[in-house]
């Protein structure tokens, strides 16, 4: 630490100019590349459309996400789980009441909003089979419900942080891995769903992934492992049953 020497400062600015010039060149090359692209390009749309009937869902984006390129999604669920493991191992947090009790208006609003969020998330999940929607959108919405609970200081029973949270967190990767290896037991390749079962398998994966994504977003927002040991348990029956 201490004051920075003048030559050091000059060097820093020199580096900045160098890097700025280089990045301008990169920008110029990217722009040139963009102008050379054809205006019309079918991409993979024809292939996706042609195989849509065999994918088990009716929406091409969901078909790509959970069937044609489901290894992307599998790895994504695993990355999410890894991030949660990292956050989880960095320390404990104290969720729930204690700092300041929720005001009556806020508590009432949360009680009103939570079921709506859960309902909307379920709708998005089901809608993913035939339109825009699916596990990520549904999981994000459900995670919002958890974040809302966390922010509003509404009493949450700590029992939720023991088994249910862990089951929700691990459910996504476990179910997805099981479904991924299931076709290889029947002589197929990894993630090669049988056509007649594809719809059911995709829905199963989506439900597990939704819960997992919601729980993961909750833990990531909370910023640590929720404390399970209960110094002061909030009154039983006061916990929100809607949470997951």
């Amino acid at each position, binding site marked *: *630490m*201490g*004051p*920075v020497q003048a030559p*050091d*400062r000059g060097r*820093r600015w020199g580096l*900045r100019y160098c*890097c*700025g010039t280089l*990045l*301008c060149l*990169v*920008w110029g090359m*990217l*722009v040139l590349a*963009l*102008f050379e*692209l*054809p*205006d*019309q*390009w*079918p*991409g*993979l*749309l024809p292939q*996706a459309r042609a195989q849509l009937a065999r994918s088990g869902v009716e929406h*091409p*984006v969901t*078909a*790509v*996400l959970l069937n*044609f*390129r489901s290894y*992307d*999604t599998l790895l*994504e669920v695993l*990355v*999410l789980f890894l*991030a*949660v493991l*990292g*956050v989880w191992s*960095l*320390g404990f947090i104290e969720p729930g009441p204690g700092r300041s009790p929720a005001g009556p208006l806020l508590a009432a609003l949360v009680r009103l909003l939570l079921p709506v969020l859960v309902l909307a998330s379920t709708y998005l999940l089901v809608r993913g089979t035939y339109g825009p929607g*699916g596990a*990520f959108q549904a999981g994000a919405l459900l995670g919002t419900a958890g974040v809302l609970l966390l922010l509003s200081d509404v009493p949450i029973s700590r029992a939720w942080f023991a088994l249910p949270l862990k089951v929700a967190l691990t459910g996504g990767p476990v179910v997805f891995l099981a479904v991924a290896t299931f076709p290889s037991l029947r002589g197929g390749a990894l993630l090669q769903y049988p056509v007649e079962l594809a719809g059911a398998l995709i829905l199963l994966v989506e439900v597990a992934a939704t819960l997992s*994504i919601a729980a*993961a*977003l909750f833990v*990531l*927002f909370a*910023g*640590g492992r929720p404390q399970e040991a209960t110094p002061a348990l909030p009154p039983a029956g006061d916990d929100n049953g809607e949470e997951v």
Partner: protein
Amino acid sequence: MPPSFLLYALVGVTLLVLGLYAAISHAHLGRKILAVNVMGSGVFLLFLALAVRSGAGSPDPVPQAMVLTGIVVAVCATALALILACRIQAMTGRAYLAGEEDPEISS
């Protein structure tokens, strides 16, 4: 008349380069994380702009799916990075990596 996807693609590329410059030139960890997020947004915008070229009303689903996957990965990477940055600040009192000069003076 240039095609309509080009405007979005150009904005995406510009965001990408601006974010890259900020990520390199700023020492503060919060700014670095923010810059990487701007880069990510630029890439997502570029992907979606290129997907539109497949025809009116039905963009290519593969870039859409990749962007959707990318958003979730970006969110969890950002969360982990922020928590690590908070931990660094709590332990050293500075939101900078070890070896960085004091940026308050030099920038």
